[in-house]
């Protein structure tokens, strides 16, 4: 079966800034693809090109059989998007926003009412359905935005940071709904800068940085691609001297060391459980008291660090 989304050399420039730089990516039908990267990586611009809101400067993308540059009207019939920032007039009520969205997407009156009531109840907004959204918190508005896609149930659901500003209970609810959406037949492109979210939901994760695609694979393979299968995280009482940092790298089985903060180290190594006493002893000798120490497996955050040399926070600052 051909991929349901194909991006071919997809590029968007705003003046001298290249927001998306020659992106080639394919998404299979029924897949959840997590598009990862810090703010400014080009994720949202990519999504806006796929939904035909903005036109590519170069290259193109196919939504099913339709070219977004020449068959944008047809492409949009397959797509639904929940935006990063809630897109609604603040004088509107959640009921009006969702009811009209369902109507413009072609749902029958009965189905529309049923789905709008269902989603408002599920997301805890039923009692607020007649209040204008300007009285809502950021999290509540975000829930209304995400609800649009959940009632539309499009062939391709494009979701931009669905759980930003939403509490942990709400996050789990929305994650479950996204999984259900896929089970009902939607292909999902999920942009996020929350690596845990991508790890939880995605079949594959594509990492973007400065408009370019760095890598795309399933999260497990991405994590396995990091040299040293385990991580020991050490937080010290005081900042570690540069010299000591170099010495840690020389310890047997240590593959790499990253100082995420001056007193916070991530040591990538093999067989962490056997190495733990040796690492502890090393810091005791260097007169750098350990505040805390723990073993962990690599996360997508580590994958991002591996490919860019930066943490997500550092990348956002740059």
């Amino acid at each position: 079966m051909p991929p349901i989304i194909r991006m071919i050399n997809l590029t968007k420039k705003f003046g001298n800034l290249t927001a998306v730089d020659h992106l080639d990516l394919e998404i299979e039908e029924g897949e959840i693809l997590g598009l990862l990267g810090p703010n400014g990586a080009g994720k949202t611009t990519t999504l806006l090109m796929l939904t035909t809101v903005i036109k590519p400067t170069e290259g193109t993308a196919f939504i099913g059989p339709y070219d977004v540059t020449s068959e944008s009207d047809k492409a949009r019939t397959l797509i639904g998007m929940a935006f990063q920032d809630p897109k609604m007039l603040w004088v509107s009520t959640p009921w009006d926003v969702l009811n009209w969205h369902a109507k413009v997407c072609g749902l029958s009156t009965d189905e529309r009412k049923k789905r709008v009531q269902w989603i408002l109840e599920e997301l805890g907004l039923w009692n607020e359905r007649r209040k204008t959204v300007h009285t809502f918190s950021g999290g509540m508005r975000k829930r209304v935005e995400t609800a649009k896609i959940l009632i539309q149930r499009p062939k391709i659901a494009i979701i931009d940071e669905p759980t930003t500003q939403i509490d942990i209970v709400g996050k789990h609810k929305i994650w479950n709904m996204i999984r259900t959406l896929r089970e009902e037949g939607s292909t999902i492109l999920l942009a996020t800068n929350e690596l845990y979210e991508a790890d939880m939901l995605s079949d594959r994760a594509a990492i973007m940085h400065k408009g370019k695609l760095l890598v795309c694979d399933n999260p497990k393979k991405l994590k396995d691609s990091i040299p040293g299968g385990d991580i020991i995280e050490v937080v010290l009482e005081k900042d570690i001297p540069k010299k000591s940092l170099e010495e840690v790298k020389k310890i047997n089985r240590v593959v790499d060391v990253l100082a995420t903060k001056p007193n916070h180290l991530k040591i990538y190594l093999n067989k962490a459980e056997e190495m733990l006493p040796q690492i502890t002893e090393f810091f005791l000798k260097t007169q750098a008291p350990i505040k805390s120490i723990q073993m962990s497996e690599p996360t997508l955050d580590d994958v991002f660090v591996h490919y860019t040399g930066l943490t997500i926070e550092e990348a956002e600052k740059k």
Partner: protein
Amino acid sequence: MISLRNIWVVAERDLRTFVNYKFMLIMRAIWFLAQIALFGLIVNKMFKPDVELAIGTSYFNFYAAGIIITLLYSTTVFIGYDIYEEADHGVIEYLLSLPVSRKELVLGRSIGGGLRSFIYVSPMLLFVLYLIGVTNLLQFLVAFISLFLFAFGVAGFSITLAVSIKSSDKFDILLGVVDALIVRLSTTLYPLVYMPNYYQAFARFNPLTFAADLFRWGAGIESTVLTNPAVAVFGIILFFSIFTFLGIILHERRLEGGGWQ
């Protein structure tokens, strides 16, 4: 292929939004009543009987028919401000992502913007008709339908300006200037015969002149009308078509070209 259902769904949204502008709607109604009850009556006294002899009806009747067109125009251009409100809240991007074509979107918005102000103006329009009286129902129906098209054209015009300028401050200033020119260089406020020839040249091709003359023709005060009603209907259709077409082009080129400023 254009879907009428999609056009109506888009129009319906603008109709619903309009109801939220309660303050504007109340103020516009008060403005209209003040124009009729104060300006219209007082100026009518000043001009008697010279104007009546020249145009065959009282200035009050002439003015009342013209001011309703001015009200229809000024209420309809309000949709341009909606575009800026939507740009502020990112709603334009949302509308562009929906499964409706750009043609359906612009047509729906023009119709919604026109229809909502037409519905709003209707009670005042009936009040003016009560004051003037209707002599030929068929003529009035032709004029009435043409005013619908006129309102759609004004909405398309306002949408086109808003999308071209992309700055609410500039739009506001430009609209003030356009309003001064388009209303003053038309027959809404004064008969064509009193205008200098070089003003008449503009006024004869002004959509507000077409609308005001058609309305007067429909209301039976034909003595004031110099424009052929068929030409006026054609002019309004042309006005509507040009600005709907421009609106569609601008949605595709300017907005999709790089989003809102």
